[in-house]
């Protein structure tokens, strides 16, 4: 029994669309018949987020993106993030699962004193996808908060939140004083608060990791986005105990990454 003789094409498309993007790519190599089905729009449309048209139409990308074959569109969105929400958020797809992957830019965060030139300044760095990132000049008390509506994200997904930043050479206040990181869904019990040192001395373990784009990231916490997602998830980074001056932190934003399943 050859499956393509038993099952009509649209049944095979359905079956492939219930696997994963990686499997669908493999299946294009099976046989001639599978090649065209596995690359078809019917399959790849199912891997794109349900509201992909809305996201792309309201983003920085050219509308001609929508006329691409769905498989190409999928990979374009995986490798080339677009700016959405008026340039405030950066959007891409997580390649293995097709889940939504956002970064909330500094402009969309609530950073205390950010609009006071004495404390923070907005600068433009070429290696950030955002127009502007926030650079700390001097504060005694650091507070950065953000929130995102859960229905912006993919449902039934575990997300990890990362604080994406840089430290310039001329910095102080982060070497010995930890900052407190917290992620929680509004209305539920507070998540576990983490205490990390952003700029540890060389002999101490570095908790922040270096990213491919040259920035540093540190995990703030995790949350699960279920199906009833009319709530918001809130993030905060704080240092408000010692009142010592702090300087030299550059904030790109907070990244919300779908958590990778490790069973592939």
């Amino acid at each position, binding site marked *: *029994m*050859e*499956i*393509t003789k*038993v*099952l*009509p094409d*649209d*049944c095979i498309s*359905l*079956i*492939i669309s*219930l*696997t*994963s993007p990686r*499997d669908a*790519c*493999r*299946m*294009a*190599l*099976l*046989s*001639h*018949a*599978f*090649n065209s089905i596995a*690359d078809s729009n019917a399959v790849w449309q199912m891997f794109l987020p349900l509201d992909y048209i809305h996201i792309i139409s309201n983003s*920085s990308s050219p509308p*001609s*993106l929508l*006329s*691409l074959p769905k498989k*190409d569109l999928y*990979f*374009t969105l995986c*490798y*080339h*993030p677009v*700016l959405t929400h008026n340039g405030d958020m950066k959007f891409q797809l997580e390649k293995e699962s097709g889940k939504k992957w956002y970064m909330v830019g500094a402009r969309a965060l609530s950073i205390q004193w950010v609009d006071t030139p004495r404390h923070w300044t907005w600068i*433009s760095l*070429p*290696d*950030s*996808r*955002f*127009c502007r990132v926030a650079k700390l000049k001097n504060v005694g008390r650091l507070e950065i908060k953000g929130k995102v509506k859960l229905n912006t994200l993919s449902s039934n997904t575990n997300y990890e939140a990362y604080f994406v930043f840089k430290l310039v050479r001329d910095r102080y206040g982060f070497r010995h004083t930890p900052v407190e990181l917290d992620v929680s869904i509004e209305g539920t019990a507070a998540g576990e608060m983490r205490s990390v040192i952003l700029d540890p001395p060389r002999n101490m373990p570095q908790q922040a990791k270096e990213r*491919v*784009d*040259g920035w540093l990231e540190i995990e703030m916490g995790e949350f699960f986005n279920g199906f009833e997602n009319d709530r918001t998830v809130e993030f905060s980074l704080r240092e408000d105990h010692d009142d010592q001056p702090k300087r030299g932190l550059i904030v790109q934003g907070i990244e919300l990454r779908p958590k990778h399943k490790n069973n*592939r």
Partner: protein
Amino acid sequence: MSKVDMAVIKPEMMKSYIWLQTADGSIQQVEQEVAMFCPMICHEVIQKGMGSSKNYAISLPQRVNPAMLSLILDYCRFHQVPGRSNKERKSFDEKFIRMDTKRLCELTSAADSLQLKPLVDLTSRALARIIEGKSPEEIREIFHLPDDLTEEEKLEPLKNTTDDPRIRLLNRLYAKKRKELKERQKLKNIEVEEERVDDRSVDDLLSFINGDNGVLIDGFTDEIALLLERIVKFSSVVFASHVSFSTSMPKYLLFPCSHLGEVREFCFADSKGIKNSKSKKKNRRRKDQQKNTSANEAIKNHNKEPNGLNQVCHSAEVGQKVRAGVGATSNLHDVKDDIFDNKNELDDGDIDDEIDPALKEKIDREVEDFARRLNSDWPERMQEILSFGHERKPVHFSLNGNGSLRRYANSEQR
């Protein structure tokens, strides 16, 4: 249909039956409420009045053989009872689909032909679970598939993944444009001769460069150089070399080949604000320009209209050692199209000094955003480029005013 309705249709019977006939000729009767769970059967009964007796048995699609029908009816019999809990249904389903792959496929097919979507979903999910994570060889074995793709065809998907998706996007847009232009050209007889000449010189270009990295082209206008320089300033990805503002010296601007299409699209993209203000001048000068500059590509600067010699950068040299091997042929199609495309929109140099400041700011932001986009995926592009491994000598070309090619030696610098 409720019990009441059914009673109205056949008042003399407490339980009604539907007659079904499978492709092999055998006929059976099935409880009405069970059979009606299948949309296809439901349709036959209600719309066509079939199934009420042996003579009027509903002919089932060929994909439904008696064994499959029996399974499907078991499924319907269980699920059509309204009082069952979700847990019960789920439990039934899990046991129900425990069968070999061959039967699962046949069952999917049969359920599909009867339009019984819940069962199709159930069996499809089961089949998806069977094949996910498996290698192509394993899947071929399970489904008895012939290995009938050639080596080339198998490699084809790999090539696509290293191609810049934006270049592929541009190729498609250019293909569309090509079609449009071919239509337009059919209507215009005057330019046909000149266009053929252009064709040939671009073909030369194509054959020389085929498989190579691209070209360097000189002779930017100051305005273009300014715009591109600002991109360079912002972008760490773009390398500028030999850019000179002196009008007596030719200017080169280098871009990584992978971003070539992107740069072009960005630089040449229609800016609606500009277009409106230039439309009057454009119409007046169009005919003159077409003849003079048939071999040149026009560059629509966001700020100003091009002045004098208009040429386009196609360079591909990235540093000295790294070669971008991908996408060369696609770039050449771009060359061809742009020549035709911009011909009609060339405007001669009335430089407009009154640039609306709001527009200027918008353009500034676009330039910045564009440069950022180039930067953001540069690390990945670098990895791809480095992984190609082969050293290729860059071939330098220049498009002269008349469209012919000048070839430079590798080391020639200006």
